[in-house]
Structures are given as structure tokens and as C-alpha cells.
């Protein structure tokens, strides 16, 4: 029951974030979506990553959005979309609907029901999985950070003096 409400809440917030034309408000709705998603994660049993999502997804990303919107300015653009809305609606609803139809029956299997009954997860296992079992993923995050940092540095860097003089 609670799950249903959280789900509905997530979708409502996401819908508002999508529909809102003011960027700042949209970013706030996104943050709320994120918070509810992390609650949903907790409900599924992923307590640790829910915290991360709450701090990174809802916190850090929102800050970044606000930051970017501050620099770029909240431009009021016409709501007229370039792609006809019915067409976009058609593409999205039908493909997602079909996917739900294809996937849902398989989730009802006995095995999966049995898994859901299990409760109680060994504490501290997450840490060992993250740092030992999936060490490669975790190490690759360093590469991702490095590449992302270089990309941001490169992108927002102003042209240096000598170059401007040349141009």
C-alpha cells in the first residue's frame, strides 16, 4: 500500500518536473522525485544506496542544476515543442506499455516471490561487495571522475588571453 503511494508520488513529481517550464522549479521537482525514489529504494531493501541517492541525486545534482541555471539564466522559451506532442506521446506510451506487458509476467515467478519473502540482510556485506567483489567497477569510477573533471574544466574554461588576441 505504502509502495503504491510512493510510486504514485514519484510519478507525480516526475510529471511536474517534466511539465514545469521554469527551470528552477523543475529542478526542485526533480529533487523531490529523487528523494521519493530513494525512499522506494529503501523499501526494496537497498538502504545504503538509498542514502547515496538522497545525498547525491537529490542533493548534489540539485545544487549543480541551480548552479548551472544561475550561470545560464532562466530563459523563458515558448512551450511550443519541435516534435508534435501526440507523436512523442504515441512513441513513448506504446513502447513503454509494450515493455511492461512483456516483462511483467516473468516477475510473478515462484523463485522471485520466494526471494522477496526473505528478510534480513547481513550487515556490512554491501561494503565488501562494493570494495572487493566489484572492485573493477569501483576503480573505474575514478576514471569516470577524471574524465568528467577534465571535460568540465575544458568546457567551461574561458579562452586564454594570448589566444583571444590572436583571434
Amino acid at each position, binding site marked *: 500500500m505504502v509502495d503504491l503511494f510512493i510510486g504514485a508520488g514519484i510519478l507525480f513529481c516526475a510529471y511536474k518536473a517534466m511539465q514545469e517550464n521554469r527551470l528552477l522549479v523543475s529542478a526542485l521537482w526533480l529533487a523531490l522525485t529523487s528523494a521519493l525514489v530513494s525512499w522506494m529504494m529503501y523499501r526494496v531493501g537497498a538502504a545504503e544506496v538509498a542514502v547515496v541517492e538522497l545525498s547525491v541525486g537529490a542533493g548534489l545534482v540539485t545544487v549543480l542544476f541551480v548552479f548551472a541555471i544561475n550561470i545560464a539564466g532562466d530563459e523563458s522559451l515558448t512551450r511550443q*515543442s*519541435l*516534435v508534435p506532442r501526440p*507523436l*512523442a506521446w504515441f*512513441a*513513448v506510451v*506504446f*513502447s513503454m506499455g*509494450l*515493455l511492461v506487458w*512483456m516483462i511483467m509476467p516473468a516477475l510473478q515467478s515462484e523463485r522471485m516471490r520466494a526471494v522477496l519473502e526473505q528478510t534480513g540482510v547481513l550487515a556490512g556485506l554491501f561494503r565488501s561487495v562494493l570494495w572487493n567483489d566489484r572492485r573493477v567497477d569501483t576503480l573505474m569510477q575514478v576514471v569516470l571522475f577524471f574524465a568528467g573533471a577534465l571535460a568540465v574544466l575544458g568546457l567551461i574554461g574561458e579562452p586564454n588571453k594570448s589566444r583571444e588576441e590572436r583571434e
Partner: protein
Amino acid sequence: MTAGILLLTIFLPWAGALFVWLVGNDRPRLQHSLAVGFSVAGGVAGLALLALGSPDEMVVLSIGGAFGNFSFRPDGLGVFLATIATVIGSLAVIFSVDYMRHEAQLGRYYALVLFFIGSMSGLVLTGNLFLMFAFWEMTALCSYALISFYNDDPKAVAGGIKALVMTQLGGIGLLIGAILSYSYLGTVEINVLLDKAELLPSNVLGIMAFGFLIAAAAKSAQFPFQTWLPDAMEAPTPVSALIHAATMVNAGVYLLARFYPAFAGVPGWQEAVMVVGMLSALLAGLMALVATDLKRVLAYSTVSQLGYMVYAVGAGGVFASQFHLFSHAIFKALLFLGAGAVIHSAGTRDMREMGGLGKQMPFVRTVFVIGALALAGIPVLNGFWSKELVLEAGLQGGATWMFGVMLFTAGLTALYTFRCVWMVFWGEPHHPAHLHDAGPAMKTALAPLAFGTLFSWLLAGSFSHLLEKTLPYHDIHAVSLVEILEEVIFAPATWIALGVVALGVLTWVFRDSLRLWQEVFAGIGQTARQSFGFEWLNQAVVRTTIQVAEDLRNLHTGVLNWNVLAIALTLLVVVVILALGA
């Protein structure tokens, strides 16, 4: 020994190509001499190979898998075409020394010509379908690059690309045949295919047979692909002589002759081959009659003569077709090079602006007339003997009405040949300035060809022996020269043909009194001038493709939203397809 010489005919010209190109355009004299040196060496190797023909594989380089083994086999069909390629190639190169003097980018010219000569040798000598297809495409590549040698001229560029595209279109037929051979026989060896053709399912063999026919028709500019060859005349004239008259266009006939034993049993194949040859011979003959561009007349006549050879193969006359190919290569190279000498001096290709050149260029006139007589089928030149053999093979192996059409075309040939010679060398002079005769290098190239035109038919007997000895699947019976001569002389077909040829000549002589007939034929002439609608068809295809491409470009809006919509819609389509398929 044989293996070495065989490889020399391929790699000597190729090495020459590399060296000439590396020397650079700053040293034209060295380029000329290198090109001549390597091509003549190649020619000598080709002549030597002629004496060493053998049915066995001589060179095998093991590669395996889908590429087969790289094998070469100096059998009769192969060595003799390789000899034509290298010898006439070297003559064309010698001719070029005068013709291409002072041209820019000589390195590119000679490199491509030499590369072509080597590839042509490879094409006819290889025993592997993969290699054959590769060489087939290489010759097309050289042909394209040489047709559009004068890249600043849009007509030359268009002609080159047209030739490339059309021969490649046909090449797909060869490709399909070759890969089917691999698929069903597990090999791309030509002799295995010839040996085991009956074992193939009949529909597969049928696809291969007609695929090869399409390839041959495209390469030899036969109906319905004949439109590329006249446009190929934008090439420098030695190239036209070598590639578009004496060698590459013969590859189609060679292909049909080579695989004749495998496909002869396919229902309808022989008839199809004969019809293709007949239509090409007839239509091109008519077009030659109305063309006014000297090189185009020769190009149409090439198509027409190739039609004779194709017709002969269809009728089962492999020897006749190859013999005519041999004669034709010599006299047509002679005609083209002669025309080149004329064009070089006169500075134009339009026959209406020539006339009366005979007095100023006596040497060229003499050799050109020899070539023209051979083309017209006048005894005792080489063209006469081979054409009679073709006609006789046609009479024996095919329908009589087709024989009638071919006879008519023989008359037509005589008619347009005399028209051409008269318009260029006799008639009213339109050129006030004094013209120089051919240069020394040109003469060096023309003289042997004229000599060959006069006497090459003497080789017919030993040629048939070579074919019998080295072609295990073709069932060719050796006949001596005397037998051939007797056969030709005593056959009624010969005399009928001679009568028709005489009629053609007379038509030209009395053209003024036949005004009425000219009116009647004006309509046909008009259609012939427009290539019987095929040129229009070609252009329509090109136009449509370009229009589709332009329309498609408009779909690329460059808007991010639309791009992402494409992703969403693709997901939908893929999901639907998969769901429906399940």
C-alpha cells in the same frame, strides 16, 4: 620456368607502374623510357608464354578459406589473351610516347596503363574465381581512372564514373556466381567448377550462368549495357585502343568462353547469349552509321564486333569467337591508334571537320585503310577469316533468322566503315592548315599492327592446336590452317556474306542515288543517335537516385528532439517486431 614467365607478364608491368610513378613528373623523359622498357619486356614475356602453354597449374600460393588458393594456369585461352594484352599494351605505350608528349601528370598515366596491362594478364591467367573477380575489378578501376584522366573535363569524369558504375553493376553477376561456387562446391577453383558443374542444383547453376552473362555483357559493353563504351572515348586515344578495343572489353567474351562448358546445358542460356550478341551487333552497327565523332564510330563498331564474338560463343563456336577476338584486337587497336594519330594532328574528333586528310597523312591513311578493310570483312585480311568462321558457327549452332540479322549487320559494318574512311581521308578538305603525319613512335606502333592485320590469320591452325591441347573441358578439335581455309572458302555462307558486304560497300558508293532510302531510314537514324533510349534510361536511374537522396536529407532535421524521437520510435518498432516474431 613457365611459372616465372607467367608471373613476369603480371609483375613486370606492375613493377613498371611503381617505378614510373616513383620517378615523378619532373623527369618525363625517364618516365617515357621506363614505361616503354617495362611494357616491352612484358610483351616479350607474353610472347614467350605463348610457346609454353600448358593445362596445369603453374603457380599456387596457398591462402585457403573463402579466398581459395591463389593459382595461375597458362592454358590456351589465357596465354593468348595475356599475349594480346602485353603486346598490344606495349605498342600502345610506344604510341603514347608521341601522343602524350608534353602532357602533365604522365606518371599517373603510365602507372595506370602499366597496372592495367598486368591486371589484364592476371585476369586471364588466374585459375581462381576470387582472383578473377579481383582482377576484373582492377581492370575496371584502371579503365575508370584512365577515362577520366583529363579530370578538368566534366565529360571525362562523367564518362569514367559511368564506365566504373556500369561494369561494377555487371560485376555483381560475377560475384554472385563466384560465391555460389564456393557455397556449393567449397572452392573457388575455376577448373573444379567446370568439372563439377553438373553436380550443382539446376537453379543454382542457372543463377551462376546468367550472372556471368550479365557480368560479361557489362564488361563487353553488350546490350543492354552498351552505353558506357562510347562515353569512355574521352580517354586518351592509346587508352581507348588498348583498354576499350583490344583488351579489357574482351574480358566479357573471355568469361563466356571460359565457362561455356559449365553453362552450355543451362536451358535458355545459349539462346540468351546469342540474342545479347545479336542485338548488340545490330544496334551498335546502326549507331555507328549515324555517329559523327571518329572515336565514337570506332567505339560503336567495337560493341558491334564484340556482339559477333558473344554470338559465336552462344552458338558453341568457342574457337571462332576467340579467333575473331584475336583478329579484332589487332585491327581495332590499329584503327584506334590510327585515329589517334589523326586526332592528334587535326585537333578534333568530329569527322565533319576532317576530310581530305589522306594526302597529308599518307602513312596513317595506308594503315587505317588496312584496318578498315579487315573490319569490313574484305578478303584476305584477318577480319575476313574470323568473321566468316563466326557466321558459320552461328549458322550451325543457332537459329537461321539470327544468322540473317548477323549477315545484315555484316553489310552494315562495311557501309559504316567506308563512310568513316571516306569522311576522314577523302572528301572535301575542311582543314586549311598543313598537318603532320604520324611521329616516329607512332609509326613504330602502327606498323606491327598493320602487319598483324595482314597476316595474323596464318596463326589460326596453331592457335586451335593450343586450345585443344590445354583446355580439358572445352571439347575443341584442332584443325590445321589449310582445313580452316578450305572450310571457309567452300562454305556457301561465306559467299552469301561476301555478297552482303559487297552490297554494303555498293550502298556507300551509290549513296547519292539512294536518297529515297535515306529518308526512310532517317527515323531509325534518329533513334540510333539517342542510343535507342538506353541513354535516357541511364539518366533516369541517376536522377531518381539523386532525388531520393535529396529527399532523405530533408529528413535529417538536425533537431535534437527529432533525433531522440528516432530512438524512441526505433525502440517501439524493434519491440513490436520481436513481439510479433515470438
